[in-house]
């Protein structure tokens, strides 16, 4: 049972285009939503994150849009570059202090072609 549903599984975008990855969740106890980026041969690394009291967060070319009522959030990569080619994982976290288990989506493999 997938608690965080991510789509698409793979995405090909032309250089300069917009990459969009979508995620949805059911558990209303989730209250922190990070995105991780993984390059081949490396472990995932935190890219950007959002709290549900904010509808949008932007860091450079990366933007998270969050729709609390629909329980959906998405990552937009503006002006996509070949260097953005990686696997992206959305994730969700519930609870406050302590062990802070993170639930990950299945990942989206992004390829940006010149």
């Amino acid at each position, binding site marked *: 049972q997938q608690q965080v549903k*991510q789509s698409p*599984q793979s995405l090909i975008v032309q250089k300069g285009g917009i990459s969009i990855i979508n995620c949805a969740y059911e558990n209303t106890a989730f209250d922190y939503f990070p995105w991780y980026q993984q390059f081949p041969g*490396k*472990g995932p*690394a935190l890219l950007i994150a959002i709290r549900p009291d904010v509808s949008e967060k932007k860091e450079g070319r990366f933007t998270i849009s969050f729709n609390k009522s629909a329980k959906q959030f998405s990552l937009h990569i503006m002006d996509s570059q070949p260097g953005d080619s990686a696997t992206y*994982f959305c994730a969700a976290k519930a609870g*406050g202090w302590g*062990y*802070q288990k993170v639930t990950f*989506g299945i990942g989206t493999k992004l390829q940006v072609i010149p």
Partner: protein
Amino acid sequence: DVKVTQSSRYLVKRTGEKVFLECVQDMDHENMFWYRQDPGLGLRLIYFSYDVKMKEKGDIPEGYSVSREKKERFSLILESASTNQTSMYLCASSSGQGMEDTQYFGPGTRLTVL
């Protein structure tokens, strides 16, 4: 910078062997995690630890055990390796401080069980 190291990048074992995967973090983090990464399934939590000698089962603990005798080291043990345990194994650590606590990942160990 946080550094999470894993003992091997590639490992080949035979069915029935006992396998040890080691992970070390250098940031005095409270929490440590073991995930396996499979195409189309994303990152799935096997076990995590929130303190020395403390452990909790994740989503897929069957066939695995863990050990945390020192704060910086977290070991994943496959008591009797099977071919369905062929996968990429990722270790992560986090401080456990606050909701926006980040998980830091190692580079992964690609295990093949023949």
